[in-house]
């Protein structure tokens, strides 16, 4: 499974890691919905760290698309909400 962290690139993560990542993802999602900035920052960094340590970077010249995409590490809660609502943040 390929996971992209925006601004950092893609990583290949074993499928067996998915449950752990999903649990962290659920925490992050709750924080975004509750508009809880402190919980959001912790959850985002936790999830990104988990992806970084679980996955090896994909070769730069690979043209594969990702199964999962994560916000950049310095994203604000508002940016993440805008990304999810596709508020024209992603160019293209």
């Amino acid at each position, binding site marked *: 499974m390929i996971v992209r962290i925006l*601004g950092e*690139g893609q990583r290949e993560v074993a499928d067996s890691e998915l449950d752990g990542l999903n649990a962290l993802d659920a925490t992050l999602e709750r924080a975004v919905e509750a508009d809880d900035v402190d919980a959001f920052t912790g959850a985002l960094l936790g999830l990104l760290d988990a992806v970084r340590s679980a996955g090896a970077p994909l070769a*730069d010249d690979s043209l594969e*698309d990702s*199964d*999962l995409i994560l916000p950049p590490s310095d994203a604000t809660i508002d940016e993440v909400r805008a990304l*999810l609502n596709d508020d024209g943040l*992603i*160019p293209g």
Partner: protein
Amino acid sequence: MSLMKRMSLIFKSKASNALDRAEDPRQTLDYSYQRQVELLSKVRRGVADVATSRKRVELQVNQLVQQENKLTEQAQKALSMNREDLAREALTRKSALSGQITDLRAQQAQLQGEEEKLTLASQRLQAKVESFRTRKETIKASYTAAEAQTRINEAFSGISEEMGDVGLAVQRAEDKTATMQARAGAIDELIASGALDDASSINRGDDISRELEAMSSQSDVESELAALKATSAPASIEAPDSTTPAELTAEENEPHHQEGQS
């Protein structure tokens, strides 16, 4: 659905929207490649812009540190002249500068981070663009309508996702840099107006300098006067004239020699 899944679906839908626009898939390949190259040069410009901003902030930090040092010297000089009031004033201004310096250093670090991130992003994009170009030529050479669409889709969705990512990164870096440039501009104006560093601007005399200079030029007058008196009555002086320092040194050194020899 998980947040990470939703986000990847948004990127995928962008990619397929872009793909649907062209009638002949081969045109899509060329058009996309053109946009990739444009984006690549945009990222490189982005790196250069961030570097320029970082250097500007560095320059400001250096200027302010220089002024900070000058204020420290002024405070020492003022104290040595028993002017605690002036020393206090110099130190007060110094502490205001220190805050600015800390703030600027944080900005400098942030810009450095952005610069590194964008540099890596441009390397990744460049590798993908080259890979895409190779694949594009292969697809076009062996083009048969039946198989083309799938292969184009494959090549296209990967690069399109990268472009979305890099485009977003450039945009965010531009926004951050713009904010910092506005602040850097404000600090430049403050420096130029002398409001920030009134006590320490380098070319112009400030009030503390003026007062210290007035005091030291007064003491210069005193010492020159004393020196003049010395030439007429050598025994009655304390201020140095041209011969005194050598004599003093000789006198100071002699006891040491004797101690060393005994």
